[in-house]
Structure formats: structure tokens, C-alpha cells
């Protein structure tokens, strides 16, 4: 695991920029320190276009064959649905791990994104969760079932959305019901 060369965060960002030109925007490299000795750690944030998303994930997996996929989070940003994928590379050596986060914007009228379970088999639960919570369609997902919500929950209601498909009708305020 330590035989590959570890790139620095500037080199990583440059390799992405060279490969994908202007499909990557909003790049931020944050450096923070901790402890008395002020050890540094880096977080890289990028906004990746939907058309190059799968290629970008493959490019990241080439940088480190043991890339770790943590989780994917998502939120409803008005006209679009934004998904944020959290990865981390170069684990195994002290203080060398870098967190890489991809933000992908999907239009609400057509929220389709490619699956990454062929590169990361452990991502299946995250992808099933996005399908049921936000109404995103994952193309090529191996198992299309609900994971956290029970099967008798209405099919077109998405709990994390803030528009009319949100869970407003399903909320019960128990203390208000007790007063009545």
C-alpha cells in the first residue's frame, strides 16, 4: 500500500483539472492544523459535472487502489438535487490521508446518475438510501429495494425534499394531538 507515490493535494487537483478541463468547478483545498505540534491535514472539495462523474471516480480510484468510500449525502437545493460523495485516499501511513469530496448537481426534472458499485461494492446501501429519500434514479444499481423506509410508506413521497413531495402530510405532532 505504501509503494505507490503519494501525490500532494495540489498535484491531485492539477491532475483532475488536466483530465476533465472545465467540467470540474469550485475547487477548494482546505488546510487545517491540530494539536500543539500543529500537524496539518487537507480536505479537497470539488464540484463535478454529471457527464464526467463516473470517469472522475475511476480517476480517483487509480490514484490509490484502496480508496475508501465513506458515505454519500444529499440535499434539495431548490431546482436541483445536490449529492455529495465523501472519499478518502492514502490511508495506512501516519498523517497522510486526504479527504476528497465530490458535489454533483442533478436537475430535478431528470435526476439520473451512474452507479459506482462496480468500483466500490460497499456503496450499495448509500445508493439505495438516496433513491428512497430523494427520488434519485441510480442507473445500473444491482439491487433496487428500499433500505431504511418501510415498504408501506407512499412511493412518491421523498422525506428529504423540501417541495410538495416532502413529508409534510406524514408528520404527527404528538403533543398537539394530546391536547385535543
Amino acid at each position: 500500500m505504501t509503494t505507490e507515490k503519494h501525490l500532494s493535494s495540489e498535484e491531485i487537483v492539477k491532475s483532475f483539472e488536466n483530465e476533465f478541463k472545465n467540467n470540474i468547478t469550485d475547487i477548494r483545498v482546505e488546510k487545517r492544523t491540530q494539536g500543539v505540534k500543529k500537524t496539518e491535514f487537507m480536505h479537497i472539495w470539488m464540484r463535478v459535472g454529471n457527464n464526467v462523474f463516473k470517469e472522475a471516480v475511476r480517476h480517483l480510484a487509480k490514484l490509490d487502489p484502496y480508496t475508501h468510500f465513506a458515505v454519500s449525502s444529499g440535499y434539495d437545493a431548490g431546482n436541483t438535487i445536490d449529492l455529495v460523495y465523501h472519499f478518502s485516499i492514502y490511508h495506512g501511513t501516519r498523517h497522510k490521508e486526504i479527504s476528497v469530496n465530490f458535489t454533483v448537481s442533478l436537475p430535478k426534472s431528470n435526476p439520473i446518475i451512474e452507479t459506482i458499485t462496480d468500483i466500490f461494492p460497499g456503496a450499495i446501501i448509500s445508493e439505495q438510501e438516496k433513491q428512497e429519500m430523494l427520488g434519485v434514479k441510480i442507473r445500473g444499481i444491482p439491487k433496487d429495494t428500499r433500505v431504511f423506509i418501510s415498504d408501506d410508506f407512499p412511493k412518491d413521497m421523498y422525506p428529504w425534499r423540501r417541495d410538495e413531495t416532502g413529508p409534510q402530510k406524514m408528520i404527527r405532532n404528538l403533543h398537539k394531538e394530546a391536547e385535543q
Partner: protein
Amino acid sequence: MKQQITKTTYQLPIGPIHPALKEPVMFEFEIEGERIIDVNVALGHVHRGIEWAGMQRNPIQILYLAERICGICSYCHPMSFALAVERAAGIEVPERAQYLRVIQGELERICSHMLWAGVAAHEIGFDSVLFLTWQMREKGLDLTEYLTGNRVTKGITMIGGVRRDITNDMHPKIKEALQYFKDNFEKLRHIFLDDKTFKMRSQNCGVLTKEDALKLCAVGPTTRASGVKKDVRLDQGYFAYGDLDFDYVTPDVLTGEVHGDVYDRIIVRLLEVKQSIDLIEQCLNLMPSGEIISEPKIPKLLAILKKLNGEGIGRMEAPRGEVIHYVKFTGQDSPYSWKVRAPTYSNVLPWIPMLKGGQIADIPIVAASTDPCMSCTNRVAVVHNDKRYELDKEELHRMSIEKTRRLMT
């Protein structure tokens, strides 16, 4: 007329409320005789809508909501949230507060691993060890109550630091508890690692290979026992871990070889208890003086967070693995988005390769060896075909104890 004898497999659901697992998970096993051919796991039974509830509250209220996600990891969830908020807002935490956070985290790790050791012994059928380890855990809980005010829901986190200090007159009590743990550690190590009962039940049982652990992105002691060096405290570091002197804990530190079975997981967890005691002593010696919180006036802190626009992630090493929180602020009272990922989320999928090829009576100990915490996670299920019958918790537990007795004679 010759009749073809067909071999069929049976379906065995071990349902949510009553598996021999202490946590609500649903398993669906496909078995042939006593051997397991295939398994499917289902989550979702403890879904409480916490992330949605968090989006209606301001960040200080979310700290206490996050504490109640899980009873055992009740320190790691609010701490990860505080880390995420501090990184999004650019708040600097004072150095003394970072050392205090390390001490509380390691104390929680000791208590959690002691609880796990008792549960693992109970699943094998060794109840006297359960009571012994839980009696030792009481000392850790008494120390927690002395330092924070409560045994389980510590309430010691604040964005920008901690709420209570450890003054010099508290040091003798901490040192006395650490001495008690050190004196009894050898007793525990002798029982768990040298005893023939534990060895014959746990060696070569529930094996997770290194390739599988890396592909399925497992975290925590489950993956370290398979030889993968993955630990957030050392890889990236947070709080004051960059100043302390320690290393990855893998089974070859003690025995020299790595098998990835249940016995290796026991080794990893016991060695981590020893490491935690050592880390707390290092912190007590190296602690700098200074402030314990960067912004003591809480209304001012709330005003800063209300105007904030940004996002951040916070990662921590809980006793079970890596916890990650993601938070996004857009200039309102409450955050726009909050995502929690507990370590058992990633440790659910490794159950499938671990249980295939094993026996039914091994299900409790293999599932307990990954230390699942379903309050942090959910379910998975799969079903197949015709014949199904149910085995409830007492039945599974009884089968596990009977296997131990069978192997002993």
C-alpha cells in the same frame, strides 16, 4: 421408475425483534442441514428520523440530539458534529480543550470494549466472564460520572471546546481508576486469550479476508483484525492525536500472524484497551494550560453560526469504527443539511462473506464480534422460497451454548 432426489435448501428468517443479537436486525439465511449457504441482512427497524429532526433545531440543540443517536457511541456523534461545524466556520479550538477531548474519548473506548467483551462471552455461554468484565466496567462508569456528571449521556461537548475542565485535584482519582484497569488487564487477557473454550469457539470462525475488507470499505476493529491498517486517529488525525505516540493495532502485534477470524477481533479489542490506558496517561502528562472553549458566550456563538455559509465534514474514530458527519449551513437558524453515517453502516455488508459456510450455532458469536450498534444503523433483508420456520432468541442462544458443551467433551 427412478426418482431424482433433489437437494433443496431451507430459508431461515431470524427476525428483527428477537435475534440472539441484542440489536434489531433481520437476517434471512439459506441453510442446508446446519451449514449456511447464503445470507441476506435487512436494516431499518430503528429508523427514527433524527436527521429530519435536526434540521428544525439550532446547532446547540442538535448536539444533544446527536448524543441520543446511540448509547455507547454517545460521545462520538456530538464530537463529530462539533468538528464538522468548527471546520465549516473556521473556529479554532484551544489546545487544552483538544487534550481534554482525547481523554474523554479514550475513556469511552475502554468502557465500550469492556461491554463488548462481556457480550461476546455471554454469546459463547461463559456467563461468569460477563459479570467479571461488567464489574470492571463499573469503575470506568464511576470515573465518567465524576468527570462529566452522568454515566452515559455525557453532555461534555460544546462547539469550540468542552464544557467541563479536569483540574489538578481530579488527577488522583483518574490515576486510581487507571491503576485498577492495569492491574486487572492481565486477568482479562489470560481468560480471553489463553482459555481453551474461547479458542475453540472463535478460531477459524467468521473469517473476513483482507481483500473483502478493503472492497466492502469496512471500518474499525473489524477491518483491523483482517490486517488492514485503517484508523482515523493515525491516518488523518484530529484533536491532539498528532502529538501522541502510538501505532496501528493489528493482530500480528501479539501473535505474529493475521487470520481475520473472531479470535483476531478479540485480540484487537483487548490491545486497544491497553492502548487507551496508555494514551490517557500521556495526555495527563502533556496537557497544556489555557482556555477550554474558544467562545464562552453562547448567544454570540449562536449569532456567528446564524450568519454562516459553508459546509464541513467531521470524522472520528468511535469504538466501532469511523463516524462521519456532514453539515451544510446557508445563513439560517438551523443547518440546511445534516448527514450522519455511523460505523455499523459500513460493517453490515461484511457479515455476508463471514457467515457463508458457517454453522447456525455460530451466528450469535460472529455477529457479535463485529460489535453491531443498530441504534446507529438499520436493516436489510432478503427472502427466497418455500419452507421457512422461525428460530427465536432463546433458541439460538441455547444452540450456541450447546455447541460449546459439545466441543468441550
